[in-house]
């Protein structure tokens, strides 16, 4: 996609200094700062991380080669497997709910006549996306507290028997944390899908109306297929957010109660910095990256396959 055809040399003197590829050396010079920062602080740490993952090392003493031992631990330790499992539960809350809610809200905003209300809605819905995730964690910890708003609303609705400290209850902590993610990501989904709907050819809708299509038929036959690309992007972004979530969980539950909200990023942090098992933490980091790529690639494929 970068390979725009090289313009023809009118003079026929390939490689002349006035040619389209002039200053190739200088071009590379311009790339140098970006590549330097990227290689130095992304690629190199990644290579070092792979190296660490083959060793048993406490961060200060001598490291012992253990081959794939750390990877074997990641895939057999029930605690670490549980963390991966929790990350996949969070996928539902970070991906399915926001994209679903985004579709509904985008359709609703689209049908608004007044531009002012539509614009205000977009701004408000987007707010959670802007604030630090750690602040979202703090805000919601308070919402979920024993004396917090969620329980108060339940009591007011006559559902007081449901009230509980949501984040410290084994059964509810994970979905409660997941809903914080839904809250953060729904606005992004709504706004992106709204832009997508705006690009769909209006005449398709008019044709559907003439054919007597109802709201649902219209949604499934025109809107949804037309948003394929946007949905793929959102699923990709929110999948990465779900699988590598750290900030929200660190500030709201720290992985507890027990291990009920433990996720890979929290495990990596604990194993690496509290338990000083650098090799195992590094291996988990590599596994996390592979997990993200393995989940994201098929989505990208699907989106590409639908390209016309």
């Amino acid at each position, binding site marked *: 996609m970068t390979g725009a055809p090289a313009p023809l040399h009118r003079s026929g003197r390939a490689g002349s200094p006035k040619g389209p590829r002039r200053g190739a050396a200088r071009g590379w010079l311009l790339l140098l700062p970006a590549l330097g920062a990227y290689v130095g602080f*992304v690629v190199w740490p990644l290579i070092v991380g792979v190296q660490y993952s083959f060793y048993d090392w406490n961060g200060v003493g001598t490291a012992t080669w253990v081959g794939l031992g750390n990877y074997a631990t990641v895939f057999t330790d029930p605690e670490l497997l549980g963390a991966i499992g929790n990350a996949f539960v969070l996928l539902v809350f970070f991906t399915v709910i926001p994209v679903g809610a985004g579709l509904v809200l985008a359709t609703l905003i689209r049908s608004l006549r007044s531009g002012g209300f539509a614009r205000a809605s977009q701004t408000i819905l987007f*707010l959670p996306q802007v604030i630090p995730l*750690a602040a979202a964690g703090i805000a919601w910890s308070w919402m979920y507290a024993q004396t917090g708003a969620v329980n108060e609303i339940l009591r007011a609705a006559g559902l007081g028997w449901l009230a509980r400290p949501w984040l410290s209850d084994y059964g509810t902590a994970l979905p409660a944390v997941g809903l914080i993610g839904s809250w953060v990501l729904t606005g992004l989904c709504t706004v992106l899908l709204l832009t997508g709907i705006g690009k769909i050819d209006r005449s398709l809708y008019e044709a559907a109306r003439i054919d007597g299509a109802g709201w649902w038929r219209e949604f499934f036959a025109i809107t949804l297929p037309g948003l394929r690309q946007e949905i793929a992007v959102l699923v990709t972004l929110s999948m990465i957010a779900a699988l590598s979530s750290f900030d929200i969980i660190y500030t709201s539950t720290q992985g507890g109660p027990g291990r009920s909200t433990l996720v890979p990023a929290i495990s990596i942090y604990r194993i690496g910095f509290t338990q000083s098992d650098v090799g195992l933490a590094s291996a988990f980091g590599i596994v996390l990256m592979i997990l993200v790529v393995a989940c994201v690639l098929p989505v990208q494929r699907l989106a590409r396959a639908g390209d016309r």
Partner: protein
Amino acid sequence: MNTSRTETLTGRVLLVLALVLTLLPLLNMVSAALQPADVNPTGLAWPTDPQWGNFAAAFETGHVGKLMGSSLLIVAGVVPAALLAATLAGYALGSLRVRGGGAVLVFLVLGLAIPFESLIIPLYYQAQTLGTLNTRWAVILPLIGLFMPFGVFWMRAHFVNVPRELSEAARVDGAGLWQEFRRIQLPLALPAVSALAILYFLWTWNQFLLPVVLIDNPLDRTAAGALTFFQGQYSLSIPLLNAGALIVITPVIIVFLIFQRQFVKALLSGAVKS
């Protein structure tokens, strides 16, 4: 449109409900922040006697002034450098189309799929080796690298769409590469650069993992990273914790409200193109 009136009404009610749900946690923070600091506050109730002094107390005892200053230092270290590097690289890839640029782009974009969490362990030991651990450089340098894939991608997308005729015309007029970049390309790129600047600002300000891991002293962290400090300090006072958190998120919300068009555009088109 022939949508029935009930349908429209249901739609509006749903939308308003979503807006309330979105705002509720934020408003709830405000109402908690205004309750007496030494009392365990309750849910949604607006305090009868709002304690506006809580904000001052949180600002003072939470060293918020210092924290904000620290965040600004980190932002000042990350944003200009990352912008400059990304713009130059985007120009080289998008406008000059240097040989091998396609491969460089693919190499960089692969970085978009690497979660920060996967790199945090090696970054810690790298900072130790470089002697930057527990200084702001431990966060600044890696962030410049970590922000590079998106930035180069974003700037290249801009430069690729600038008509070739423009730079050809400049060349005919005898402008050198540097002059062409300074006088013609850069002014045209300003909207793209400023959108990227806003994103970089917010991502740096909100960065949590790196400062928490790499900087021991909370007062040297980013504002978001410093929220853990509030949590530790105010673990017993929910009102002060909320007041502190509100102060930290205020600048982000202001920046967002002022620049929301550019911000959303940058985020969305960047996202769609990737």
